[in-house]
């Protein structure tokens, strides 16, 4: 979406400054920079700070922030807003993310661009409500029922919370799909300096528009353009299986087959564009052990890799920035000369299972639950055991 004058003014007001921000707050600023028009949410630790800062700041940039009666309603409201042409988002944590699942599925099925921030906390249920975790990695992938695909990104610093919000909104518009910023409570509550970019360096991706209402849910395009409400096209949006013109057809097998495969494929075929990783490898093929991590866990993981290298061990490192679609090609490549991959994560082994599917070497999860992130020492010790 093109930024309007109110948003430009807001960015001009902040551009070039450096703030000391929580990850949550950085995410909120990042959203406004990305042209967010509408936020609807429900308070929950450790995501409330996203809503609180957005509530304070978004109106200054011409947008609107509301608190709904629950997370089902929040997710519903942002989908409704998206069909008027708005960039819309919500933010939540585990219990709220669970409540949103049905309407996330609705957004997937209706190909509605929107952004969901999940600042993960320890579960199941209210678990350790105030403690960070990375236990929703697979819920983000498969949380709603039925076959579907999803995009999820995981930041590991306050700055990245800011930066990735732009990516989330752009990807949502480009692929016409909900996008999840899969934070964790540790990153949400970390306080770091964040550089607020100047207006001139803020990029815009426009939502693709359709001309004919007959083809906003299919037709010739893998990713059809949208027509918004109020444009006189009598757009019909439904979460039931539908034809290219949006009209329900819930009985013809090939109609469902083609729709679901297309929605699946549009994200699969964008893999190269969506996948974001960061690697730090030692000189060619010397390493037999690699570490893959993401989000908060990637911080001690990288520290441990550094420490091991200081002791002369050749350890490769890869950080997943995009979680879904999974960086299968990049991970396979990374693993080529390795005997073993260690995967520190704040769960009992979720992404390690996914990594296992795409590599030939051994994969060992380095799980940590209980609400406290790994220490560098803990991971370092596992690495040293592995290399010996």
């Amino acid at each position, binding site marked *: 979406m093109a930024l309007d*004058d*109110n948003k*430009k*003014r*807001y960015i*001009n*007001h902040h551009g070039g400054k450096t703030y000391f921000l929580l990850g949550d707050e950085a995410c909120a600023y990042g959203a406004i920079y990305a042209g967010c*028009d*509408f936020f*609807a949410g429900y308070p929950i630790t450790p995501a409330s700070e996203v809503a609180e800062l957005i509530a304070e700041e978004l*109106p*200054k*940039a*011409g*947008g*609107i922030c*509301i608190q*709904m*009666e*629950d997370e*089902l*309603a*929040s997710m*519903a*409201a*942002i*989908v*409704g*807003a*998206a*069909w*008027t*042409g*708005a960039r*819309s988002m919500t933010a939540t944590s585990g219990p709220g993310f669970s409540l949103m699942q*049905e*309407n996330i599925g*609705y957004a997937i099925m209706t190909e509605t661009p929107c952004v969901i921030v999940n600042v993960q906390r320890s579960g199941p249920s209210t678990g350790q409500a105030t403690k960070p975790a990375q236990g929703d990695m697979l819920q983000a992938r498969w949380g709603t029922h039925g076959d579907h695909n999803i995009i999820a990104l995981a930041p590991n610093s306050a700055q990245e919370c800011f930066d990735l919000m732009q990516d989330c909104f752009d990807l949502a518009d480009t692929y016409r799909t909900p996008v999840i910023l899969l934070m964790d409570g540790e990153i949400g509550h970390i306080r770091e300096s964040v550089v607020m970019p100047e207006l001139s360096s803020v990029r815009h991706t426009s939502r693709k528009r359709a001309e004919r209402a007959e083809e906003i849910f299919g037709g010739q395009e893998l990713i059809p353009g949208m027509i918004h*409400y*109020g*444009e*006189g*096209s*009598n*757009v*019909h*949006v*439904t*979460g*039931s299986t539908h034809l290219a013109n949006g*009209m*329900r057809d819930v009985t013809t097998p090939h109609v469902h087959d083609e729709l679901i495969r297309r929605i699946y494929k549009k994200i699969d075929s964008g893999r190269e564009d969506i996948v974001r990783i960061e690697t730090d490898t030692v000189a060619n093929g010397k390493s037999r052990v690699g570490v893959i991590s993401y989000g908060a866990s990637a911080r001690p993981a990288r520290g441990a890799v550094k420490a091991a290298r200081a002791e002369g061990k050749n350890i490769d490192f890869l950080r997943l920035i995009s979680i879904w679609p999974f960086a299968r090609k990049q991970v396979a490549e990374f693993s080529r000369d390795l005997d073993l991959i260690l995967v520190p994560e704040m769960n009992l082994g979720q992404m390690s299972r996914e990594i296992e599917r795409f590599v030939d070497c051994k994969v060992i999860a380095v799980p940590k639950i209980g609400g406290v992130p790994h220490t560098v020492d803990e991971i370092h010790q596992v690495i040293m055991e592995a290399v010996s």
Partner: protein
Amino acid sequence: MSEPRHRLMDFVREEIMPHRFCSGCGCGTVLNAFTNAVEGLGLDSAEMVCVSGIGCSSWIPSPYFRADTLHTTHGRPIAFATGVKILRPDLTVVVIAGDGDVAGIGGNHLIHAARRNIDLSVFMVNNMIYGMTGGQVAPTTPAGVVTTTTPHSNVEPPFRVADLVVAAGASYVARWTTYHVFPLLESMQNAIKRKGFSFIEIMSQCPENYGRRIGLRTGIDFLKQFKEQALRVEKANGMSEEELKDRIVIGKLCDKERPEYVSELHRITREQVDKLKKEMGGAA
């Protein structure tokens, strides 16, 4: 011989008519009244968004009414509509859905929307049953009735949904039946015109999955009963619970002006934008 064409076909998705409601179902009559209301108001469908949930009644706008349409998840249409209305206050946003949808699974959204007084018109088709799924008990089913999930009779008292919405703070609330089509039509127009949250509880019939079980086999049976049970609100005022048992209180239950949610939200945004403008010395 070519068939005559009803003028209201301009307002429905004619290519998929006749609709798929059962014979004698009240949903068709509600669609009829609604299209009449829109025609009478001179509303252009390009200025309307119709939002519905899941259930037979939700099919009234989706797919049948020809406008921008959001056919949402079960119970959530008011929440979806909230997002639409906030971003496009200039559009007329109407929610049409069933009693199970609006007052059962979605009851929380209903009372909060009424409390906020958001400028939506919600037309709840109360057929006292979960019609689409085959006749299970609804929060509006009278006590003592046998349904598929209360095979030994329903022990719960029903919600009087319109009264609930009055208490929650809506601007305009009325209750009519599918027998009272002329006042219903007029009431729909008033609801749409009234800025703020408007709600009409439309007592309707599901001969197929409800009537069959309670001895009202046809639409006619229901309409006769509605006619008998109906009691004007003016007359009902001051009557005892006992006297009102088995009666349907019809008419306008409230019509008042209150600050409207979306206008208030936009006012705050305008103020905040202006403040920043000033702070920055009017720079863009």
